[in-house]
C-alpha cells in the first residue's frame, strides 16, 4: 500500500511520518515514534489502555487512524507533566496507589484528566460511570476513583 505523509503534533512537538493510511494512531505512537507510554491492551477499543487526547478530548488511539489526527493537538501520557512537575492527576494516582501492575495506568490517567475537564467528576458515582471505559484487571478501582476525586477537588479549589 502506498505511504502518505502525515504530520502529527504530539505533546507540543511536530513529527513528520511516511506511513500507510491504515496505520492507527496507537501504532504510530508506539512503533514509529517510540512513545510507548500509551499501551495496547485489546486493540479493539474496549479496554481503554490506549487512551490519548486529541484537541483535549479523550480518544482511543487504537481506533483512530494516525492520518485522522493530522493537524490536531495530540497529548499522550508522556506530555502531561510540565517542566518535570507531575500533572495533578498523575500526582493523585501516585499518592493514592491507584494501580498495581501499571499497564492500564497511562490510559486511566488520560481518561481521568478528560473526565475532570468534562465536568464528570462531581461525585464518586459519576466518576465510576465516566471512568468505566478503562479496564483495570488488578481491580484497583477504589484507589483510581479516590485519585480522580482528589485531583478533581484540587482543580475545583
Amino acid at each position, binding site marked *: 500500500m502506498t505511504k502518505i505523509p502525515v504530520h502529527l503534533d504530539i505533546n507540543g512537538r511536530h513529527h513528520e511520518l511516511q506511513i500507510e493510511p491504515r496505520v492507527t494512531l496507537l501504532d504510530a505512537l508506539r512503533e514509529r515514534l517510540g512513545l510507548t507510554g500509551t*499501551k495496547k491492551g485489546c486493540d479493539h477499543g474496549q479496554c481503554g489502555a490506549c487512551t490519548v487526547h486529541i484537541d483535549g478530548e479523550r480518544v482511543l488511539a487504537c481506533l483512530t487512524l494516525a492520518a485522522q489526527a493530522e493537524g490536531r493537538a495530540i497529548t499522550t501520557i508522556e506530555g502531561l507533566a510540565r517542566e518535570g512537575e507531575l500533572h495533578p492527576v498523575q500526582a493523585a494516582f*501516585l499518592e493514592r496507589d491507584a494501580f498495581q501492575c501499571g*499497564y492500564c495506568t497511562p490510559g486511566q490517567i488520560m481518561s481521568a484528566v478528560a473526565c475532570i475537564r468534562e465536568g464528570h467528576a462531581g461525585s464518586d458515582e459519576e466518576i465510576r460511570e465516566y471512568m468505566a471505559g478503562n479496564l483495570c484487571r488488578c481491580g484497583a478501582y477504589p484507589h483510581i476513583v479516590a485519585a480522580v476525586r482528589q485531583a478533581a477537588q484540587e482543580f475545583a479549589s
Partner: protein
Amino acid sequence: MNKHATSNLKAEKIVGGVATDQRHDSAHKHVSGTAVYIDDMPEPAGTLHGCLGLSAAAHATITRMDLSAVRAASGVVDVLTAKDVPGENDISPTGRHDEPVLADGKVEFFGQPIFCVIAETREQARRATRLAKVEYKELPFVTDIGGLDPRKDKLVTPPLTLKRGDAAAAIKAAPRRLKGKMRVGGQEHFYLEGHIAMAVPGEDQDVTIYSSTQHPSEVQHMVSHALGIPSNAITVEIRRMGGGFGGKETQGNQFAALAAIAAKKHHRAVKIRPDRDDDMIATGKRHDFLVDYEVGFDDEGNILGVDFMFAARCGFSSDLSGPVTDRALFHCDNTYFWPAVHAQSAPLYTNTVSNTAFRGFGGPQGMVGAERVIDEVAFAVGKDPLEIRKKNFYGTSDRNITPYHQTVEDNIIQRIVTELEESACYARRRREISAFNANSRFVKRGLALTPVKFGISFTATHYNQAGALVHVYTDGSVHLNHGGTEMGQGLYLKVAQVVAEEFQIDLDQVKITATTTGKVPNTSATAASSGSDLNGMAAQNGARQIKDRLTDFAAEKYQVPRDQVLFLPNRVRIGNQEIAFADLVKQAYMARIQLSAAGFYKTPKIHWNRDKGEGRPFYYFAYGASCSEVSVDTLTGEYVVERTDILHETGRSLNRAIDLGQIEGGFIQGMGWLTTEELWWDDKGRLRTHAPSTYKIPLASDRPKIFNVTLADWPEASEPTIHRSKAVGEPPFPLGMSVLHALSDAVASVADHRICPRLDAPATPERVLMAIERLKGEAKA
C-alpha cells in the same frame, strides 16, 4: 554525589523498612508512562515478528496443510510447523508429554496453534497467517463436562481422593440428608498486558528471552527442551508483567519456545505478541467445575458427613490440572470441620484449551462447593446461613482436623467473623432487608457473610524453595535479585523492604533488579501466594550472610566482642563509636571481605503423601471474611452490589498499603468470576467470548457502592514466616463469594426463603432471572 552521602546517620528508624507503608517501587514510572514492559523495549535491528496459525476444528486429524500462499506472502521469512522444532515438540510443564509446541497432524481444540508465521513486521505475519489452507478430518469432540461421567471418562491426570472417617455411613446415619449439583464457571485472566516473548540470539547456542512469565525457570527449561540445547545457554529475563494472575505461570512457554526457535534459526531477534483474541483463544483459563455433593446433618444444622465429587473441565492436556484439582479438594472444607468426609477429583479431558493456574488455583472452586453445602443445610433447617456457618466452623483445640489430616493450628475465623458481623451491622441489616423486601414488589435485597481460609504453600513440596542474590557495592548501595517475578503485586518492593531492614539502610539504597535465570537459578513460579514468603526469606538469608561477615570483620578490626557490633539506621555501632554503613563496607572491601551472597530458603514442616491423601501440605492458613449486600431487579435479573465490608488478615503485614490493594483487587476479581465473567463455547467447539466485547470483567462502575475494607491489625503468623507476615495474593480472591451468596439470598426472597436457590456461578443477570423464575414456579407448585 553518591546518594548514601545523604543518608541520615542520626535517624532513629530507616526509611522504608518492614511493616511500613511504602509506595510501589515503580509508582513514579507507572504514572508517567515510563515503566518498561517487554513490548516497550527497543527492538534490536532486524527484529522479526511471529503470529500463530490456529486450528479451525475442535478435534481432527489434519489431512492437508498448504502453506505455500503463506510463505509467498509479503514480508514472510519463515513458517514454522511441528517439524521445525529442533528438540522435543512438547511444553508440558509436568512432563506428561501431552502438549505440543505446535500440533503435529492432529488437533485437540479449536484454536490450537498449528503453525507460526515469522515475518518482517507483525502486520505482515498476521495477514499471511490468514492465507493458510488447512483441511481437517473431524473427529468426535466434547467441550462440556456436563455429559461426562467423572468416574469413567478420560482424565488428563490421575485424580485424588481425600477421606477422613466414614462419610457414607455418617451421611446414612444422619437425621437428615440431601444431595445436589453445582456448576462453577471458569475465568479468563484478561491480564491487560497479553502474552509476549522476545528472543535475542547470542553466540554459539546462546539465546536470551524476554518473556512475560511468572516462571522464568520453567520457560528456560521448556526452551531448552524445544531447542535441544542445555539450560545454561538460555537466559530468561522479566522485569515486570502487566498482570499475570496465574495466566503466565505456564502459558508463556509456547510463545517463548517459538520465538527462540525462530531466533536461533534465522539469527535475528524474534518477537511474538499475540493479539487479544488469539491470546484468549489459545491460552488456558481457570477451570470450571461441576460439583456433586451429598451431606448428612441434624435438625440444628450441624453437618455430620459430606461427600464431594469435583469434576473439572481441564481441556486437552494436563498442564497444571493435577495440582489445581488437588487444591480444589484441599479447600472443600473452607473454614468448616467435616466430621466425616469423602472428596474426589475428576480432572476431565475435553476438546478445549488446556485450563491452567488462576489466582486461587482451584481453591476458590472448592470453597464455593463448601459454601453451597452450607446454604443447602441452612435452607433445609430454616436458619440464617451465617448461623450454620458459625456452627460448623473449625474449632481451635478440637474439631480441627482437615480432610487431608492436617491439623488447623492457627484458626482465627471465629474472631474474624465476629468482628466483621459487628462492624458490618449484619443482624440489624438482616432485619432492615427483610422489611425492605416485604415492601418492595420488584427490587429485592440480599445479604450474605462468607468466610475464607486459604492454605499457604505449593502442594508440590519441592516448589517451596527460593533463592536470592545480594551484592553490596563499595559505596554501600545494595543490588537485590531473587527468583520472584513482579506482576503488580508489590513483591519486589516487599523483598527490598526486608533487605533494607536487615542491613538497616534506607530503602532507596536497595536497587531492585529484573528477575533473570542468570542470577538466581532453579526458581519456582511466582505463584501460590508464596512470593514474599519464599523470596523474602531467601533475600534475608543472603543479607544476613553478608552482615555476619561484616560483623566478624568489625569485631576483629576494632577489637570488640561480636555482640558490640550493632547495625543502626544507616550506620553501625562498633563498641563506643558509630560509623556509616558505607564506610564499614569500604573498609571490609579493603580487607578483602566478600560482599556478595546467594541466599536460600526452604519452607520447613511441610510434607504431603498424595497416595495416602495425608500430610501437612500447608505451612499455615490465611483468613478473611466479607459481607455483601445486593439489590436485584426481579423482572430483569439485573443487580447492583450496594455494599461490601471486608475484614482480612495478612499476619503482621510487611506493607499494609500493598496488602490492602491486593485485598480490594482480589475481591473485585473474585466477584467478577462469580457474577459477570462467562466463558461460552459454541457447537463447533469455538470459544465465542474472546474479547472484552463479549467477556465482561468488572468495571469501575461495578465495584460495590459502599466498600469498607479493613486489614486486621491483631493477627500474626503462628509460624516464623518473614517478619511474621502472611501471604496475600490468593486468599482475598474468594472473598467475592459473599456477592454470589447475597444474590442467592435476594433470589430466595421471592419464595419466602423456603427454597434454596441453588444459584450457579457465574450468576449473570440471565442466570439470576432464571433462578427467580424457577423459585417462583416451585413456590407455587
